[in-house]
């Protein structure tokens, strides 16, 4: 099986750990990943004003690239890219007037009307591989690891592009359980990490991130799994500072769900690029013997 893949800017550099582990895992599962040609930044956020069409050009251009290259599905991974691409796609499907304006504005491109389906990596795994088959492929089960499924905002909201209904965490739960981990529910799985508000704010001001970590820690979660480089930044990379300022009670290491996937599939730890995570993340996995296969 071959899939078209949109990585997005952050996954090529600062979130290489999210991307490389994802691609290596799919390859191990027999899926060939083809990055679409000439992709550009999706714009990171979907424009919410009624009159702003210019910011649709970025995401729509990526969808056009996928259509041109014959894809009917475009798999993506970063939660923010997924949300922006899926919402722009929905606009192109449903709003005929705006669609026409955007198509006419991009007169150097083929017309687009939402022919490509934007699919998140987790949905793809469930639909095309399935949890049973994934379980069979696991070589180093993450037994003993208590994980929280941190969805954040953009995987589920708004409802019409959510990978599953608001308040339900079945996809990541299904995947993690197939990997042998114990999924511990907690009340902050869909709470915002503070998102782009990190810009211009001191990390210690991020009360939203502190709340998520405290709730997760309080529920007995040892590791948080996420799909978003901004969540990982606010909850993971900023965690030391939150701890130093006593905004959080205890650390809770953070991971991309794809890193946990790659490890359980028995892939080399190098593909997970743990050097980009906080040091505590690697330490926890070592202490739980999750790196045994590597």
């Amino acid at each position, binding site marked *: 099986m071959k899939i078209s893949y949109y990585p997005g800017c*952050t996954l090529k550099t600062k979130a290489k750990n999210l991307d490389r582990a994802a691609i290596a895992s799919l390859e191990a599962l027999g899926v060939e990943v083809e990055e679409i040609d000439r992709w550009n930044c999706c714009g990171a956020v979907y424009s*919410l*004003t*009624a009159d702003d069409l210019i910011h649709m050009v970025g995401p729509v251009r990526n969808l056009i690239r996928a259509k041109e290259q014959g894809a009917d599905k475009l798999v993506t991974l970063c939660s923010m890219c997924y949300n922006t691409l899926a919402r722009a796609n929905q606009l192109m499907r449903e709003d005929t007037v705006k669609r026409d304006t955007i198509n006419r504005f991009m007169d150097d491109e083929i017309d687009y009307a939402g022919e490509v389906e934007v699919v998140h990596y987790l949905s793809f795994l469930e639909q095309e591989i399935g949890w049973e088959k994934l379980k069979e492929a696991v070589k180093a089960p993450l037994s003993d690891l208590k994980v929280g499924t941190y969805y954040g905002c953009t995987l589920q909201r*708004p409802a019409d592009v959510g990978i599953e209904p608001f308040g339900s965490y079945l996809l990541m739960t299904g995947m993690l359980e197939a990997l042998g981990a114990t999924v511990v529910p907690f009340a902050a799985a869909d709470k*915002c990490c503070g998102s782009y508000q990190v*810009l211009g704010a001191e990390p210690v001001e991020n*009360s*939203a991130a502190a709340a998520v970590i405290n709730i997760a820690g309080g529920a007995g979660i040892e590791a948080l799994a996420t799909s978003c480089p901004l969540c990982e*930044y606010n909850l993971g990379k900023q965690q030391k500072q939150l701890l130093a300022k006593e905004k959080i009670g205890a650390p809770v290491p953070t991971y991309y769900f794809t890193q946990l996937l790659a490890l359980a599939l028995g892939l080399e730890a190098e593909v997970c690029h743990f050097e980009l995570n906080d040091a505590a993340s690697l330490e926890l996995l070592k202490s739980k013997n999750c790196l045994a296969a590597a």
Partner: protein
Amino acid sequence: MTLKMNAGTQSLESIQKLNELSGENVKLCMQCATCSGMCPMTAEMDYGPRRVMHMAQFGLKKQLAEINTYWKCASCHACTVKCPRGIDIAKVMEALRQQSLRTGQNKVEPSQMSAETIADLPQIAMVAGFRKLTS
């Protein structure tokens, strides 16, 4: 702060403009405060989203220009998915931001950011932040 509402403080035109820019109808709000209960950023806001909706309904343009709510909003859509009146509050917040940004003022100054911060932040943080907080 007591909100004064009279012909002098109200701008009916601003209600219409906000509705047009957001694509929402702020008058539908019934002040139940579900949005404020859902909002993860209220600790940093001087007014929660419910009170902002109230100000918007009454066209309190001047007060709306002075508060920080929409600058602290993270566009998380937690309010939107739970509003019993079906209002996309995140869109109202975006319209309030844009009304200010479109006068050419930045809320964060990219040129003031240190090289270390830029090297540290993920690209999506900067792209998203600049989209939301700069003109």
